[in-house]
């Protein structure tokens, strides 16, 4: 078996090949390039985390009534502040947490699936997973009148079911990405009409409720809805992050990845289960917030460059997108728009540009 040290005989070859630099200097260049990339990634993640923090704080501070930062901090750390405790503590804090957590879930899950399928256009909200989760959640809440953990359970079972069905339907001697995406689109269309039906059967056509399940909203967030999502992120997030290296290897193609010792099918299953789980829990809490899963990955990839894992940056971008869009939707426009509408409208031009760019340059994240 080969040793872990650099092969000394390769040195002999190096001397034969004309024009090679002195031994060790290339390794130094490689190290330099790698460090530079790591620094860039660190900076990007740091800035993104700061943005999320600012947006989080703004969600607590800004609104019909503005609160000062010291007041907000006091409420968050558990003190009783008359006039602020209710609004900040019971209304805005769960909303902010929900926004950050679901955004992170969507961003992380979205980029994982896009990377695995080697196509930025293959996002959980396109291939039917979000549609399944929201149809099940809408059914559970509106038709069955359930709440809290039961809704999450429905959503996750439905989302996993959809993922399984889509995967099995796409399986013929292995899964072709194209076929998977197309089948996902078909299943999504079907599930969206189911959601629309469930909504139309509601006792009254409540537009607010409808928008939650059609495009996503943070309205009426309470701790009961937030908690399952936080737990899901804490459990499934690390699973996904652990597959980061394997995912990066998968981008080279199944054969090349296998040749490097990556267990392709096992990685796929783990990634799918974790990502789908994240999407399901997040959707059960806030509805399918349009385009967040879709956009976070490509934005992250552009920021950190192709050699770095985009998983963590995409999570932060998702959180930032949701919090900022909600801020805009609640405060900056005449009417209060739920977050899904804002991301849907603002995301559309970027989406189009992304499709154009992907088509022009071939498919890769």
């Amino acid at each position, binding site marked *: 078996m080969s040793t872990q040290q650099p092969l000394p005989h390769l040195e002999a070859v190096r001397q034969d090949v004309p024009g090679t630099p002195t031994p060790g200097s290339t390794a130094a260049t490689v190290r330099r390039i790698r460090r530079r990339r790591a620094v860039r990634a660190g900076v990007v993640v740091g800035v993104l985390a700061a943005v999320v923090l600012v947006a989080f704080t703004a969600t607590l501070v800004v609104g019909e009534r503005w609160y000062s930062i010291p007041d907000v901090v006091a409420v968050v750390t558990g003190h009783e502040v008359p006039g602020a405790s209710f609004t900040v503590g019971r209304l805005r804090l769960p909303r902010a947490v929900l926004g950050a957590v679901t955004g992170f879930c969507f961003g992380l899950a979205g980029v994982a699936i896009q990377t695995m399928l080697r196509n930025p256009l293959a996002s959980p909200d396109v291939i039917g997973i979000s549609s399944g989760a929201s149809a099940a959640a809408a059914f559970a809440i509106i038709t069955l009148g359930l709440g809290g953990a039961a809704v999450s359970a429905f959503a996750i079972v439905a989302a996993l079911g959809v993922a399984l069905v889509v995967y099995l339907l796409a399986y013929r001697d292995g899964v*072709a990405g194209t*076929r998977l*995406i197309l089948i996902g689109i*078909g299943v999504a269309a079907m599930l969206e009409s189911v959601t629309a039906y469930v909504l139309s059967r509601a006792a009254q056509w409540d*537009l607010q409720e409808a928008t939650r399940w059609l495009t996503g909203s943070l309205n009426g967030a309470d701790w009961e809805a937030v908690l399952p999502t936080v737990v899901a992120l804490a459990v499934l997030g690390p699973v996904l992050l652990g597959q980061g290296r394997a995912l990066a290897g998968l981008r080279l193609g199944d054969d090349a990845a296998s040749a490097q010792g990556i267990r392709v099918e096992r990685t796929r299953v783990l990634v799918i289960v974790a990502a789908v789980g994240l999407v399901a829990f997040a959707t059960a809490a806030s509805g399918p917030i*349009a385009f967040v899963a879709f956009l976070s990955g490509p934005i992250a990839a552009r920021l950190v460059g192709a050699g770095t894992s985009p998983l963590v940056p995409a999570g932060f971008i998702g959180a930032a997108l949701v919090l900022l869009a909600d801020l805009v939707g609640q405060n900056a426009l005449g009417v209060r728009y739920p977050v*899904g509408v804002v991301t849907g*409208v603002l995301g559309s031009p970027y989406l189009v540009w992304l499709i154009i760019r992907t088509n022009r340059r*071939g498919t890769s994240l």
Partner: protein
Amino acid sequence: MWFVVSLAVLAGLVLLSVTVGARAVSADEVLAGLTGSSRTVGEAAVAVRLPRTLLAVVIGASLAIAGTVMQGVTRNPLADPGILGVNAGASLAVVTGMAWFGLSAAIATMWVAVAGAAVAAVFVYVVGSLGRGGATPLKLALAGAASSAAFASLVIAVSLPRGDIAEGVRSWQIGGVGGATADRILQVLPFLAAGALLCAATAKGLNTLALGDDLAAGLGERVALTRGLAATGAVLLCGASTAVAGPIGFVGLVVPHAYRLLVGTDHRWLLPFSAVGGAVLLVAADVLGRVVARPEEIDVGIITAIVGAPVFIAIIRRRKVRSL
């Protein structure tokens, strides 16, 4: 021979549609209702079902023709006005018109819907054709799905501030033939007739187009003209249909495929057959929707999606799709 069979099936379904529904009626009432009298509640029910059935026939035929033409123009077996976002674009145009410009006149609404359908069709086609391979099924479907999602968000964004039209918005999310009146049918008929005529005129051209643009041009076909005329016809059909009945998808996908298996790929036969087939499908879906969930009704758009999606998936599975 198949044609006669299809027509017979259609006639039977029409009768069924008029007879069946949330409320049971007797044969006498059916006859009386058909001749216009509405003395009893049963006859009134029949009188309501007639326009609805007629609308389903007409819209079903139009959507099927539009789907067949779209598949011919894009050489894409997965083309359908719903999947390509054309119906969604029409809906968006109408909702925007209603919310921002006070659009309400029926004819104007139809023109606006047609314009929306046209813009959406062009947009999706352009986006889907960029890059290697032109407008492959995957790229078109993705462009369509993404555009539909975008349009749907915009519909909500536009209608949210306007509580007065919120109720109406619901009908723009799901297509249905309930609430049809003879007036509406008469208003939409010219659009549909014009669209159908345009499509029929390009039938022969579409056959040649199936060989590929270069080959077709080499055979003397005026590719751009045929494409343009056919697309215009399809857009007229989709836009007007959506204006009257809301977005109904999958009819344009399923029917042409079924009839291709029966009668082959000659568009001169395929178009009329698809028309009848589309009518059959939509009337059947409407009857099903009225019967399955008595006394409630399930809108036609939902039934076609639930039935059409598995067919869509079956089509994808049967074809050899090269991986990315």
